[in-house]
């Protein structure tokens, strides 16, 4: 009883007044606690449980992302860094190209892929296309060992954020092309970290919904990376038509 009352007090402030009034009336009529009070007590007893259950939802949602981005330690130990990277990228439904080869390995829509890449233990990965996948900061663990990575496409990755960009410095001596267009989480704060990519030649920052002044940011980016060609399609559109931009922002979750 005591704990339920404490809970009740915590969860709804007005209950104290409510309880007083009900007590007053009950002293006159001697009626049992009204249905409403009972319901309130019942609900408040359950309230924290409801809250706990609700708090599982994001955890469950994130579970898929976490599973996709686990560290491929076993593969790395047994087959080497390159195979681990390749396997990780294919499991994400992405594609990659080994250095010195022209053909790409990709997984199909249903996530099926050709296991031939297992024969190339010694070829480092040169190009990675993980656009529209669930790659995130932790998943990057599987890529950081690649010392020849030249192209990275992250277009439309919902989990790529500023912390992810700040970690790209591991490819600072090799990365030449980076595509981060349509990433809903990226802000100016992360773009500043691209400064570390010394040899970057091409950067695509089109349609980043969380950037407030795309025009200014592109100018600042060009200033920061003078040797790099910054693409920002859809940016004129943003300047001219602020209305549609705010619309699309409102739609973004």
């Amino acid at each position: 009883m005591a704990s339920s009352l404490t809970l009740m007090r915590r969860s709804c402030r007005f209950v104290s007044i409510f309880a007083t009034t009900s007590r007053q009336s009950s002293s006159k009529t001697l009626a049992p606690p009204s249905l409403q009070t009972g319901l309130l007590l019942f609900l408040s007893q359950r309230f924290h449980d409801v809250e706990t259950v609700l708090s599982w939802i994001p955890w469950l949602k994130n579970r898929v992302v976490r599973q996709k981005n686990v560290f491929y330690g076993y593969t790395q130990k047994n087959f080497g860094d390159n195979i681990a990277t390749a396997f990780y990228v294919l499991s994400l439904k992405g594609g990659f190209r080994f250095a010195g080869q022209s053909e790409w390995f990709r997984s199909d829509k249903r996530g099926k892929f050709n296991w031939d890449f297992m024969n190339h233990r010694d070829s480092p990965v040169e190009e990675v296309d993980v656009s529209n996948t669930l790659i995130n900061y932790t998943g990057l663990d599987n890529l950081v060992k690649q010392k020849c990575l030249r192209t990275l496409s992250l277009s439309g990755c919902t989990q790529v954020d500023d912390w992810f960009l700040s970690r790209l410095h591991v490819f600072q001596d090799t990365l030449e092309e980076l595509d981060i267009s349509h990433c809903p989480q990226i802000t100016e704060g992360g773009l500043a970290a691209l400064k570390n990519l010394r040899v970057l030649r091409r950067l695509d920052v089109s349609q980043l919904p969380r950037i407030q002044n795309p025009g200014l940011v592109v100018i600042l980016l060009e200033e920061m990376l003078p040797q790099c060609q910054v693409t920002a399609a859809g940016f004129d559109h943003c300047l001219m038509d602020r209305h549609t931009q705010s619309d699309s922002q409102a739609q973004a979750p």
Partner: protein
Amino acid sequence: MSTWRGFCMTARTAQGFHVYSKCIYKHTQLCTLGFRKINTGRPVQSDFFKDLENQFKAFREKASEAMPGSDWTPFEINRSLPPERADIVIVGGGVIGWSIAYWLKQKERIREGVRVLVVERDPTYAQASTVLSAGGIRQQFSLPENIYLSLASADFLRNINEHLSVLNEEPVDLQFNHSGYLLLANENVAHIMEENHKTQRYAGAKVALLSPTQLKEKFPWINTDGVVLASHGLENEGWFDPWTLLNAFRRKAISMGVYQCFGEVTGFRYTTNPMTNTDGDKVEFQRIKYVNVQMPNSLEYQPVECAIVVNAAGANSGKVAEMVGIGLGPKDSMASVSLPVEPRKRFIYVVHCPDGPGLDTPFIIDYSGMYIRREGLGGNYITGMSPEEGEEPDTNNLEVDQEFFQDKIWPHLAKRVPAFECLKVKSAWAGFYDYNTFDQNAIVGIHPLVNNMFLATGFSGHGLQHSPAVGRAIAELILDGGFRTLDLSALGFQRIIKQEPVLERNIV
């Protein structure tokens, strides 16, 4: 009416040892409403009140019987009054205080397992250093403890929405700028920088050393005269909005059931136990029983019975420690060692310089002590510097000394980045460092003589960035009885008694 405004009630404490009476001053809406409605004639009124009083009395008695150890009353008491008892009282609701509160709740095993109260004297946070800080986080320290604290905190900030998101509320957006810190060294300190770099790499921080040529190549707008070595943080370094972090901690902690109260801690009621140590000397141990919380704009204070007190009062924590007699004991005894934390005023100036370096401006710390970082994208920067030891400004107010910028900061600034020769000071503010006069490092842990006071203070300019990890450490100390994730025993109060400073080399 006056009898209604303040009537006395007797409350029994949980243990039932101590009985005292307490006045509750409150105007419940219920009472006022009732009074207005039935304001017909005197006899009726007093009858009605008598009746109601009796009923309330009976109800109160029943309620307190039903809930032993609870201070629940049928009235909506003044919400800012603290509860009569709490397990843990945290003095100071800055970022450190709220972080500790959050971690205590996070670590409690059962719901409502610990009752935590945060006492903050200023609801506007007008003088709290948290909101007046520069908001930077770096790993470029020399002390491994500080590096690990920053790494752990950066990890926390990265996953902040897993830790601090509240159901049905917006996710936390810290506005983190990943620009890194750039420390510059002249020939006198270059060897220290090199050693520090080794320690940092060993601890797992991603920091790169740059020669003046490499520096020039990376940041062409920097004048490298006098610079022999530079170190640039590549990951987990930058700055963020301190207010957002403070609010996120507070919001989450309150949602988890932490009590907050606005009032000033003016004193403690404690017991003293004299004991004799093996050398035959008398040592007096204190134990805090009650924290006196004074309500704003009133002389009234409420004693809060508690088991543990955490001193997280920032720059004021030296004063709070004095209230239990820390440092007031007889000379040359352990009790004469005071908590060496005092406020030191530091200025921050906002300057506007449209031709300044752009998006890539890191948080630069020059070997002269001058620092500057970008603020937003509109050509604004914030800059500051620590004054020399003998020239500490007066700490009675938060007024800004404009000359300090002209005379001390600007020359260094314009020399380091020539673009800043032309600039305009837009505004400025001052804040208090919680300055540890002994060794400029945090004091984290229990006080050896007051065996229920925990200290988390003395951060001297890097408390904001260490707050998540320090909060966790203190919570472990209280709930687990020892450090579990990060061993911070080197930062304990013992070092001050033993007179063994743990110094940070290259401190700013």
